[in-house]
């Protein structure tokens, strides 16, 4: 089996329009959540989110491209450009034929849907732009990445709600690990901060009106974000042969399904995914120094997740650090696991643990070291990234320092 390393990373999210700015914001515990701005926002009862501002799509794409790129595709392409520039890879011949793209995404082109539904239902128009379908399809981002970088191997989109990115990265890992592809571009993106997108979430009554405070006793729900995270997963020997800089090694993963409830999480399903990732990576629980939590800031998730971590790690649960960066970049749904993997890379590579900001009151049911409010310097050999989706679909990845 091949060892798999990460040789490039890119992102766009509310904390920054690239990786260095995002990691700086995470180190400083900055909050990307603020008032939402888009058409009809005044008709929402939830008016906050981690929206990407100061983003000028016309600086990156021409008019023709923009007629085909929904916002989730735009974020993906910009993140992919950053990741591939860092990796220093160009694809041709055999390398191009075997390398591919697996990305996570949940909602597809939600802003495209929203705008076009508004146009036909509310404005009464009977004609829509000819590219609505190729713009809103969930696989649009993966396809455009394959086209821009000449990736001709296995490419597809994984859609498992809030675990989409982790499932996608698990697939990409498996492909490189098994020797199917020397390089896979992977991660995920989401952009559903539009009237219809937030209105749908509002209906569930799990959204906070003021802030995301994971693990804090006074938390009152989740806050949505948007953005993309894209990584270059590469065969270790291929990377070292060309002298590439290695950010971290991906050492294992696991996927489980709760098979119990469409929205309520299960401790057992989460614990099996965490334990499975340790087993796949041949790790002792004591080697794990940091977990990037799913940590949505809802009562249901946070209690279940902490109980699952306590079950798997037993005495070591009190020694490891676990933080939720969603309080900073929001819950980026299908892209969230990819953006959160950046915090895991920062932990193992830079020895900096991103904090759980917004933490105000200890909760006895979440009595772990959640790195409250302030980032911490700590040497970490192994970091896990948790994702537990609606529908009971879970995926956990393990990264090791190189």
């Amino acid at each position: 089996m091949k060892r798999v390393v990460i040789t490039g990373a890119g992102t766009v999210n509310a904390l920054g329009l690239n990786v260095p700015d995002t990691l700086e914001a995470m180190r400083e515990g900055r909050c990307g959540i603020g008032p939402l701005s888009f058409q009809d926002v005044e008709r929402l009862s939830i008016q906050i989110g981690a929206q990407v501002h100061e983003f000028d799509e016309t600086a990156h794409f021409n008019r023709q491209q923009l007629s085909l790129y929904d916002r989730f595709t735009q974020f993906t392409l910009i993140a992919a450009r950053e990741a591939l520039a860092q990796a220093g890879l160009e694809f041709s011949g055999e390398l191009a034929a075997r390398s591919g793209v697996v990305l996570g995404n949940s909602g597809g082109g939600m802003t495209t849907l929203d705008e076009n539904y508004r146009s036909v239902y509310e404005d009464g128009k009977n004609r829509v732009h000819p590219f609505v379908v190729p713009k809103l399809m969930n696989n649009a981002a993966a396809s455009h990445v394959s086209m821009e970088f000449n990736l001709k191997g296995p490419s597809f989109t994984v859609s498992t709600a809030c675990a989409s990115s982790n499932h996608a990265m698990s697939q990409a890992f498996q492909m490189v690990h098994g020797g199917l592809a020397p390089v896979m571009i992977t991660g995920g993106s989401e952009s559903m901060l539009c009237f219809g997108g937030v209105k749908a979430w509002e209906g569930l009554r799990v959204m906070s009106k003021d802030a995301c405070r994971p693990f804090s006793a006074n938390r009152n729900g989740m806050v949505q974000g948007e953005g993309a995270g894209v990584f270059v997963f590469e065969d270790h020997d291929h990377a070292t042969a060309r002298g590439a800089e290695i950010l971290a090694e991906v050492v294992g993963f696991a996927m489980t399904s709760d098979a119990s409830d469409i929205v309520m999480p299960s401790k057992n399903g989460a614990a099996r995914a965490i334990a499975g990732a340790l087993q796949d990576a041949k790790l002792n629980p004591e080697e794990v120094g940091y977990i990037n939590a799913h940590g949505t800031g809802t009562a249901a998730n946070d209690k279940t997740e902490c109980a699952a971590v306590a079950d798997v790690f037993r005495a070591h649960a009190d020694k490891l650090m676990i933080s939720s960066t969603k309080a900073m970049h929001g819950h980026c749904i299908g892209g969230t696991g990819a953006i959160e993997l950046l915090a895991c890379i920062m932990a193992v590579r830079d020895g900096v643990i991103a904090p759980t900001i917004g933490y105000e009151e200890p909760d006895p049911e979440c009595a772990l070291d959640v790195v409250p409010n302030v980032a911490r310097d700590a040497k970490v050999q192994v970091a896990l990234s948790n994702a537990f989706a609606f529908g009971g679909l879970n995926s956990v990845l393990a990264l090791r320092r190189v």
Partner: protein
Amino acid sequence: MSVQDRVIKIIADQAMIEPSDVALNDTMEDLGIDSMALVECIFALEEEFDIEVPFNANEPGKSDFDISSVTSVIAGVERLIADQSG
């Protein structure tokens, strides 16, 4: 139909029982209404009476809207109708 009867009908629909089987002092738990059914119930009440019910599923006990029994839900709806009418 009175507000009371309309509320009871909505609760009974969610609990999948006859309105006559709903007792005023029943709790949502007594009626087998779980957290998802409760969110649907709140939505149905909002639609039926054209009101906004303050309710966060993360902290159902802390909401201003008292859901501890059928009686308290009826009283809550009546208050919201009075507060939000016109």
